[in-house]
């Protein structure tokens, strides 16, 4: 169960694992995620399903190493298996032929964007994907995003590749050119999603965001993942992960994402101090 069939290092701290998980591979849809627990003492963390192959019975997980749990997972090699993989969780993306859809992805947010862009294109949409990263070396899934989109545009913060600037700068120029856009998806770090929504709100352009807050069970039982949407509390795991970006309280989300910063630092330091991957 949950054997790792393939591992790739996509960028410095971005890892890709192809995991044997036939039932999830068969039933998962764009927009859904899994919760994994690496080992007996591990915590439960939500990870995006970046892709799946129903025939091969595999799902693809892509994650950025930001703390102990993701670093630990990054230590896993082909042939290892992840102790627990639960899913698919969350509501699938609402897919139909909307017309022209812009899919914006920043950093690790490109991974959840990929299956959405793919499904939208398959449904007949004209998919303009805009992906970005701090620098060229950190840009992931370029080739796969190109296949999943009608058109792919790229930005880097430092200008090392594509447009010098942010994904929102590219969107702004599309709008300025008079591009008729029916729907937007924006997935990435909270400041990027907030910036995208500020921009699209000015043009009354409906924007869907996919949220990735702290979770524990992922089935609606604990409420750790609550977020304010349109003034109401929602549970990301059962009500989301996708919401109308214009209604999401991003300021609150940022604060909630920092709830365990001291413990996260302690855990990470301890992990590194004890020899990192040796402690798998």
């Amino acid at each position, binding site marked *: 169960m949950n054997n790792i069939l393939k591992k790739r290092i996509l960028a410095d701290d971005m890892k890709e694992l192809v995991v044997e998980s036939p*039932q*999830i591979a068969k*039933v998962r849809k764009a927009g859904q995620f899994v919760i994994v*627990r690496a080992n007996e*003492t*591990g*915590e*439960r963390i939500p990870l995006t399903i970046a892709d799946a192959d129903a025939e091969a019975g595999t799902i693809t997980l892509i994650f950025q190493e930001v703390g*102990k*749990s993701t670093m*630990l997972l990054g230590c896993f090699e082909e042939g290892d298996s992840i*102790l*627990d*993989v*639960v*899913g*698919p*969780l969350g509501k699938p993306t609402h897919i139909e032929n909307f017309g022209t859809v812009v899919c914006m992805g920043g950093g690790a947010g490109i991974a959840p964007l990929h299956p959405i862009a793919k499904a939208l294109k398959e449904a007949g949409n004209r998919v303009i994907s805009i992906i970005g990263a701090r620098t060229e070396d950190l840009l992931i899934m370029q080739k796969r995003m190109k296949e999943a989109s009608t058109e792919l545009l790229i930005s880097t913060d430092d200008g090392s590749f594509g447009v010098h600037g942010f994904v929102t700068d590219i969107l702004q120029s599309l709008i300025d050119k008079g591009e008729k856009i029916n729907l937007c998806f924006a997935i990435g770090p909270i400041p990027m999603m907030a910036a995208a929504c500020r921009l699209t709100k000015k043009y009354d352009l409906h924007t869907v965001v996919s949220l990735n807050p702290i979770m*524990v*069970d*992922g*089935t*609606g*039982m*604990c*409420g*750790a993942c*609550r*977020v*304010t949407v349109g003034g109401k*509390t929602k*549970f990301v795991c*059962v009500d989301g992960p996708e919401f109308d970006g214009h209604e999401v309280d991003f300021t*609150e989300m940022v*604060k*909630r994402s*920092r*709830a*365990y910063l001291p*413990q*996260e630092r*302690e*855990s990470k330091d*301890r992990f590194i101090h004890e020899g990192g991957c040796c402690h798998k």
Partner: protein
Amino acid sequence: MPEQDPDIRRHNFEEVPFGYTPELAQLEAERCLFCKKPKCIEGCPVNIDIPAFIRLIKDGDFSGAARKIKEENTLPAICGRVCPQEEQCEIVCVTGIKDTPVAIGRLERFAADYERENNLIEIPDKAPATGKKAAIVGAGPAGLTVAGELAKLGHEVTIYEALHQPGGVLMYGIPEFRLPKAIVNSEVEYVKKLGVKIVYNAVIGRYMAVDDLLQDYDSVFLGTGAGLPYFMNIPGENLNGVYSANEYLTRSNLMKAYRFPEYDTPIIKSKKVAVLGGGNVAMDSARTAMRLGAEEVSIIYRRSRKEMPARIEEVHHAEEEGIILELLTNPIEIYGDEDGWVTGMKCLRMELGEPDASGRRRPVPIEGSEFDIEVDTVVVSIGNGANPLVPQTTPGLDTNKWGNILADDNTAATSKPGVYAGGDIVIGAATVILAMGAGKIAAAAMHRYMMGIPEPEPALEEESSKSKKKK
């Protein structure tokens, strides 16, 4: 029963009562009058033959007593610890009229512990294989009961559990100091030895639908348990430091956050904790907060002590450990700082008015009684709604307006043929033993359904199951 000293136990997660020694158990067993028409059996939601097992303890056949209990109850070491005996079997005990009732719960615990600790657990004879298959959704008290009963009847049983461990609320909800997880594991092991298979990490409604299960199984039981936690709907509830009791307890119990950083799941280190609510879960949360190192823990409850739904024993234990009860108090706002952390709470004093629909006197705010308290953590423990995942994905499964699955009192049958349900998903948040009672009813009905045995006339059954329900 001897127990850990409050000043010591408030700093550790070890079990509070030590349990009877064989001598103490036999002394207690001798107090039983062995009534000709024992009322205690009727008081028990799973109808354990209480005088029979107490007689075995009296005679020194302790493992025989455990086996006697297990004829009706698959999880005796658990029930001996968490059942509200004082309102079930012990309240009707005849000895209790002039004296304290026989400590049935403690004796049940003793027998089960004795059998386990001395490796005397035996697997009972099972009926010959029927060739029928049943799927159980949820490895909590209801699901484990159905599974054990059906396995004994010769059916092939598979449990689908959403979490990575079995036990449901026994594992994620009830703390180690009240129900050691090794004991839950041991009783689950017993159910597995009866031939029950458990598939973990399988969230039915996402991973597979109930209709998928019906393709492979002859009947399905839904014991998905309590669902989405309720919040107060007051300002400040999304501040850092505000937890649902479910989250607080899950982090500590299931994920072992009390052993952070050895275990990776963190929990906030609190100084002043307010727990909102007056039930057993509120007591568990408050006592957990104390053990996690909080300096001051208060339980904020809007009615008076008399109306508290928690067991008297739990309230007593909490108070012994230094937990403050702020009764007739209702929070109306949680204050936070600019980084989004809880700093305090605004509360109102209440007084009791006329009884409401639940029969308890309704709390009414006293005008102008607002006051502030300083806290850094708030644990909201005011109950759970129904989890929508199964009802949303199961056509033909009827629910009430709160989303609870509708199931027949006498058979646990739902509106969908071959599908049965019981426990918190049907009756809302209740007790372990009521879930197990429903599980026994469901198992009997599923057996009849799978074997093509007609349902018995409901006339007499109805009366007894209804009176049981009210408790």
